[in-house]
């Protein structure tokens, strides 16, 4: 089984910051907007290097989204930065009308997604954002798994014309994808080859899926792990190719099972190849305060939960 090495824990938001810094140097049309969370979003370096292209809007997210939409008129590529909760639910109608329906080239970059935001608790831990954003026609939805991939995705979305939601997080997590790797929007990445079960994971759950696959392998279960960084447009072919071989699937995400990656996968399977599926996701609940590890355990989002789901789905084959 192919194994992956953690080159050192890093936060995905810093991958975004590094990507934005590089874009500042390579693409003069890139502008950045922030709603009073510059440090949290790791946008300081871009701000220092390009003060004329950095727009501090204050605690006014609705205005930020509108300004970003307007800035595209004349050729700028705006990257907005705030927490995932304030990037989506708080400004849904602004995104819907001024960005998505108007098809503006705005990149909505959202940190602190999911329960791994930790101690701040449920007011700040959005678990509904993937669903909200994937329902908007024309919106590309990306949830990256580590520092390197988040940096690569940040660079990649600047070249893509159209609205994008880029979701990442706060905690330091294993960094294992290639440094300066290519990021192709909508293209799944097969991480391990396997025959017994397909594990489709996104975001912070990708590393957990690899850990689960390693443990399962020791017990004679061969798992194929697929990193779905782009939830929309979904790589239907990669999913169908894999389940044609394995015959069952576990989806894993730091999001409500209503509206998340799992439901998108279920749709593809229902239409093309009905397949037993188990969901590793939060079960229609809000989060709470705690450390990221405690919360991942309590809400069933770690490698152990994935292993349990695999055992369950194998019995349904």
């Amino acid at each position, binding site marked *: 089984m192919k194994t992956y090495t953690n080159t050192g824990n890093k936060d995905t938001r810093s991958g975004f910051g590094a990507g934005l810094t590089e874009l500042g140097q390579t693409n003069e049309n890139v502008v950045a907007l922030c709603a009073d969370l510059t440090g949290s979003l790791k946008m300081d370096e871009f701000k220092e290097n390009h003060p004329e292209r950095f727009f501090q809007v204050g605690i006014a997210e609705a205005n930020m989204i*509108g300004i970003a939409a307007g800035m595209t008129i*004349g050729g700028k590529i705006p990257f907005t930065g705030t927490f995932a909760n304030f990037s989506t639910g708080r400004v849904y109608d602004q995104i819907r*009308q001024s960005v998505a329906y108007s098809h503006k080239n705005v990149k909505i970059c959202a940190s602190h997604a999911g329960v791994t935001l930790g101690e701040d608790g449920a007011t700040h831990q959005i678990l509904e954002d993937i669903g909200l954003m994937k329902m908007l026609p024309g919106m590309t939805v990306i949830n990256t798994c580590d520092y390197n991939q988040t940096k690569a995705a940040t660079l990649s979305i600047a070249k893509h014309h159209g609205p994008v939601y880029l979701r990442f997080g706060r905690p330091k997590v294993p960094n294992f994808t290639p440094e300066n790797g290519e990021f192709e929007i909508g293209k799944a990445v097969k991480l391990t080859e396997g025959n017994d079960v397909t594990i489709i994971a996104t975001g912070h759950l990708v590393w957990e899926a690899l850990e689960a696959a390693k443990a399962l392998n020791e017990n004679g279960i061969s798992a194929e792990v697929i990193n779905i960084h782009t939830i929309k447009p979904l790589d239907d072919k990669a999913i169908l190719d894999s389940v044609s071989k394995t015959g069952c699937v576990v989806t894993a995400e730091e999001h409500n099972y209503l509206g998340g990656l799992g439901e998108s996968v279920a749709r593809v399977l229902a239409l093309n190849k009905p397949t037993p599926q188990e969901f590793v996701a939060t079960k229609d609940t809000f989060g709470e305060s705690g450390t990221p590890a405690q919360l991942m355990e309590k809400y069933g989002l770690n490698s152990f939960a994935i292993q349990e789901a695999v055992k369950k789905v194998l019995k349904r084959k």
Partner: protein
Amino acid sequence: MSNIQQLEDLTTQVRRDILRMVHKVNSGHPGGSLGCAEFFVCLYKEIMETKDGFNMDGIGEDLFFLSNGHISPVYYSVLARTGYFPVEELNTFRLIDSRLQGHPTTHEGLPGIRIASGSLGQGMSVAIGAAETKKLNKDNHLVYSLHGDGELQEGQNWEAIMYAAGNKIDNLIATVDLNGQQIDGSTDNVLPMGNLKAKFEAFGWDVVEIEKGNTIEAILEGMAKAKSLSGNGKPICVLLKTVMGNGVDFMMHTHAWHGKAPNDEQLANGLAQNAETLGDY
């Protein structure tokens, strides 16, 4: 340059277009549209510097954003009659497969429209964004926007108003259609707006008041003054006092025609008050 009579004639024709558009589909918003007919005619014929043809990026020309998108009939009529798309297309207003959606949108690629609007309160932010990009592009042209007075009840406007002053967006001229009416009644009854001039000034804007917002000369004079204030470190607000339903006597001074179309008899009455000038579509 057009003379005043030419602008009056165009306004009269625009009023006919508005009435006929909303009558045909028995829906739409004639009241606010009629109240802003003179403003749109002045804006597109005299005030804004625009290029021939339509380019979404609008570099090297003035831009306009309609925030209160429900007055789409006046917007469409003036866009068509200033050459953005064929006047005959006004026939398709609100019909299936039309580019002339109930509220303006970029989705169908209608020339002249740069943002969707209709869900209220978003246009000033968009206009500010476009103005920021003009500054980055060192493009000295101006950005204009129009907002309903009732629309200012949406909180996003005040985020935008604060931002524009704090960031010296002095290439923006945001006009408020002060007709004092909204769907449920007068703004004073629904949610009093207080002294808007004092509010904008307190937020750090320059304010120009146009008392006779349905008079061509007054609009031209007021907007010229607004233009002269641009580039001085402050955003500019124009308070345009209009009469909802202007030019059609039974539609004036009431909110009743905010979102209601005339019947056959009322249409005939309205058209009789506005004799054809440039030719119906």
